[in-house]
């Protein structure tokens, strides 16, 4: 596509006071032969945008370069639909607000990023959707028929989707279905309720869009979002069905390795769930029940985490004790009473019961002694120790996800049979901004399988995950991607004639989007793809590219920067920044009017995982003195939006540093740093430090060659 470029420079927001905009116009006109180049004092206003619209029509522009604010600002104002491809050049936050006004170096920075923008715009091609042979299926599979699953199913069904619930038990209800009473689910949050699971189950079973498969287990799920094929073992035999998206709501099991608390030594020491069954029976032969909180929880040798629900479970069960016998007492020994949100009201009202006794303490032993049990504890509220005789001890044990050490979905992904786990075994993604998103596209975890939570949250989780599943099917149907690049139509193009079957892209794809044929050639599952570009960064042959994001495009942008001679004593550093977190952090540097070195050229990328090492070589060839990369946190508690991107980049950069050393270059010239979205001050500090390092190691010896 031939580029007919229009360049629009905004002088508002202080831009005109800081930068010599005439020079920018000159570059647009002379170096890049822009068809139109205008400067406007309020470009995002109606007058400005209308002018652009007029020029698109009148001058036949197909590319518009907006030199104004951050690409994260005024997105609607500068959206011209399919008429023109818009490229944003951020001379506000990244130049005018973070550089010395009217300075030679400031102008040079603005000029360089305009050049980068012009090149990027020229190299951007219109997008075409990926092609698949089959239609996207709109059925939503809900795995697990408990509180979470049934709510997910109901909401998805109400939105018009057909839903299949697979439940391994012979009834719906799950964990909440086995309770004598449920926690309050609405205001005033003080009184126990009937669990109401039978009513919910009958609404689910009565819904025309919902098919319930009881006593059923999944045998295999293959395919990709919109195109999953499930093999199901039901009571009446094997079935196969086509599924669009999946809500994983299989709930939890209880942690029962509780020998250290006398569990198993006596029938007077029971777990929360055993006590629930005793209370269900309607008779309780104990007048004096002691609840031990954090049994096997928040303990490095057992479950290191808090299960969020056990404090509430014991408060609830203490009420059973009191309801069943008004002269019986319930004593709760807790480490920290954790009753989040509205459940503070439930705690307060339970505590107000004269027969419920609470103290903070560390339980030191639970020893059955004939028909009673002796519980000892240290550090009570009065800082003393405590010894209690109980008729019955209830160990409030924590929960683990059903998926822990148990295959449930049985996926045929090259990456494994189920969704990857976080540190504690929950099949969640570590990225805090996107709840329900697992690391498998189209599969959404909800309820206690995702993280320990109270029933109202589980209910909401089910609904939220159902909406995510619907969103996935809708967007996938438009051939676009789901989070985090939601609605992105781009798709990597594999120029397979030059593929060497090295399998780097297929192995490194964080989402299993790339299978291989027998020879090792990549075979995409387009609907699993999240468009991060990790494949593009991985490919040594540079044959994986997007129409609007390619190895060549970014290499050309690097080369477009003007690198002064060594004598001018103006070093140049290329900063490759992840557009998810580091880019907004850089915007905040400008918003907070911090000064950042004018010698740095920032190059935004989709994810550090998409950084092809050839860019590093080309930057050094072009005379850049150093390259600094800013990406998201990686490791166990990663914040990378594409799970593995920044980690992969880190490995690649270690190799690059090694290569630099072999070439007798200083390895310090290439550095990678993890930046969180709020760490703008750190971004500035790291950049300053890097500039000092570059000054110390001296100019790039290849400069000028």
């Amino acid at each position, binding site marked *: 596509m031939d580029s007919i470029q229009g360049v629009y420079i905004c002088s508002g927001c202080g831009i005109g006071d800081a930068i010599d905009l005439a020079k920018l116009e000159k570059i647009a006109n002379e170096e890049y032969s822009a068809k139109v180049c205008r400067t406007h004092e309020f470009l995002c206003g109606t007058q400005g945008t209308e002018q652009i619209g007029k020029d698109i029509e009148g001058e036949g522009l197909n590319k518009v370069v907006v030199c104004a604010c951050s690409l994260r600002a005024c997105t609607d104002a500068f959206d011209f639909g399919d008429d023109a491809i818009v490229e944003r050049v951020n001379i506000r936050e990244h130049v005018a607000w973070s550089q010395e006004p009217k300075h030679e170096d400031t102008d040079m920075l603005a000029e360089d990023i305009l050049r980068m923008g012009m090149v990027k715009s020229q190299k951007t091609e219109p997008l075409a959707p990926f092609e698949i042979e089959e239609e996207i299926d709109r059925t939503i599979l809900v795995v697990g028929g408990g509180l979470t699953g049934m709510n997910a199913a109901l909401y998805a069904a109400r939105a018009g989707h057909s839903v299949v619930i697979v439940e391994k038990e012979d009834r719906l209800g799950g964990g909440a279905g086995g309770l004598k009473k449920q926690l309050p689910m609405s205001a005033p949050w003080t009184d126990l309720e009937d669990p109401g699971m039978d009513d919910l189950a009958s609404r689910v079973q009565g819904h025309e869009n919902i098919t319930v498969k009881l006593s059923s287990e999944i045998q295999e799920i293959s395919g990709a979002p919109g195109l999953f094929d499930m093999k199901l073992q039901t009571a009446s035999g094997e079935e196969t069905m086509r599924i669009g998206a999946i809500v994983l709501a299989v709930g939890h099991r209880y942690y029962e390795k509780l020998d250290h608390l006398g569990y198993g030594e006596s029938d007077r020491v029971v777990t929360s769930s055993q006590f629930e069954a005793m209370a269900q029976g309607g008779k309780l032969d104990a007048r004096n029940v002691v609840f031990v909180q954090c049994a096997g929880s928040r303990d490095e040798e057992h479950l290191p985490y808090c299960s969020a629900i056990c404090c509430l479970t014991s408060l609830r069960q203490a009420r059973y004790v009191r309801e069943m016998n008004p*002269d019986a*007492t319930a*004593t709760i020994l807790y480490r920290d*009473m954790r009753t989040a949100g509205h459940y503070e009201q439930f705690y*307060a009202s339970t*505590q*107000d*019961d*004269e*027969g*419920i*006794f*609470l*103290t*903070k303490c560390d339980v030191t032993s639970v020893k059955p002694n004939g028909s009673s049990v002796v519980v000892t504890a240290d550090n*009570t*509220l*009065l*800082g*003393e*120790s*405590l*010894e*209690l*005789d109980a008729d019955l001890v209830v160990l409030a044990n924590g929960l683990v996800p059903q998926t822990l050490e148990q295959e449930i979905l049985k996926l045929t992904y090259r990456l494994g049979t189920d969704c990857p786990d976080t540190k504690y075994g929950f099949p969640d993604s570590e990225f805090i901004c996107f709840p329900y998103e697992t690391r498998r596209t189209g599969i959404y975890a909800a309820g206690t399988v995702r993280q320990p939570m109270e029933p109202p949250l589980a209910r909401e989780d089910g609904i939220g995950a159902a909406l995510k599943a619907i969103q996935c099917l809708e967007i996938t149907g438009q051939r676009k991607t789901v989070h985090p690049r939601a609605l992105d139509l781009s798709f990597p193009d594999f120029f397979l004639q030059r593929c060497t079957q090295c399998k780097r892209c297929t192995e490194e794809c964080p989402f299993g989007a790339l299978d291989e044929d027998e020879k090792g050639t990549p075979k995409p599952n387009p609907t699993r793809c999240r468009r991060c570009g990790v494949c593009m960064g991985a490919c040594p042959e540079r044959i994986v590219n997007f129409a609007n994001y390619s190895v060549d495009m970014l290499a050309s942008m690097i080369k477009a920067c003007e690198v002064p001679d060594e004598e001018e004593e103006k070093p140049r550093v290329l900063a490759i920044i992840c557009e998810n977190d580091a880019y907004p952090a850089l915007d905040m540097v400008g918003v907070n009017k911090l000064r950042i070195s004018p010698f740095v050229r920032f190059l935004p990328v989709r994810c550090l995982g998409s950084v092809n090492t050839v860019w590093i070589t080309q930057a050094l060839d072009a005379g850049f003195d150093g390259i600094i990369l800013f990406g998201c946190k990686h490791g166990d508690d990663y914040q990378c939006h594409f799970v593995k991107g920044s980690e992969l980049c880190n490995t690649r950069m270690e190799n690059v540093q090694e290569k630099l050393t072999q070439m007798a270059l200083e390895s310090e010239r290439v550095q990678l740093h993890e930046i969180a979205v709020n760490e703008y001050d750190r971004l500035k500090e790291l950049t300053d430090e890097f500039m000092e390092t570059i000054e110390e190691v001296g100019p790039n010896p290849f400069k000028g060659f």
Partner: protein
Amino acid sequence: MSDSLTKPDLEFVRQLKAAGGENLKKCFQCATCSVVCKLSPDERPYPRKEMIWAQWGQREKLVTDPDVWLCHQCNDCSTYCPRGARPGDVLSAVRSYAIQHYATPSFMGKLVGDPGYVLLALAIPVIVLLGANYMAHGGLMFAPAHGEIHFSEFLPHATVNVLFSILFTLALIGGGVGLLRFWKDMKKHRPGAPKVGLIKAMVDTFVELALHGKFRTCGTAKPRTWAHLLIFYGFAGLFVVTGIVVIMLILAPDSYPINTLTHPLKIAGNLTGISLVVGCTWAIYNRLSDPDAAGSSTYYDWFFLVVLLMVGITGFGAQFARFREMTTLAYPVYFVHMVFIFALLIYLASPP
């Protein structure tokens, strides 16, 4: 181990709640109460630990706890308590319970601590005084026939002195025994305490009472300080004046009756009487007008306030009737006055 919790006692929790600490279970042990209390010592601060004991029904610990007696019920704690547990009310309930617990003989505690016994508590002095009247006159005699009013004709001074002295002494003995029991229990439950002897402790207490120094640090219930001071000095003054009159009657019976309002003893008596009546009225007003700030008012509190006020009012009534020579009114009012003084002496002294 002395502070540690033991088996929770549901029954005691119920008793404390009934005695005015109905919000005690609401406490979530944040210690705001102990921090805002200006009287709470740095070591072993209260009322947080008392709140925890109360929640767990720790009867032994609470009745032997000296700290509840440091509380002046200013109610800063109840005002600042984020959960509305009203620690001031709980301490008051504990004190009320402890009074009944240590009252000697124990039925005395019931008489003043249990609203169900109010008629009996008042009937005792009525019966005893009527009996004395009957014995002095060989039959009930309320209003002597002749004009000038001499209360001694209604009840001879000697009878009154002997009767009241004996009863008051018995009551003092009962109170003393109760106090000693408390002192012994306190020592048993807190090894190493007390750091001062009983006598020194009592002297310190009287000094504090005379000055009301700690009372004045109170925040929420500040008006109580002055009401309490007036009552205290009114009561103490009347006690001293009455004592002098009794001694005068024994040493120089002729100097009595005092028939002029300008007599120094009359002036002293009337001034202290005014102090008592004003103090009691003020205290009752405080309790009624802002019950939240005043804190819970146990039956025990009301009983004494009313008895004190009635002593003052009937005293003035009897004096007024006597000087106005309203014979039909003077003797019955005097009788009621004697009933309340009787009640005051036996019931105030016996429970510690």
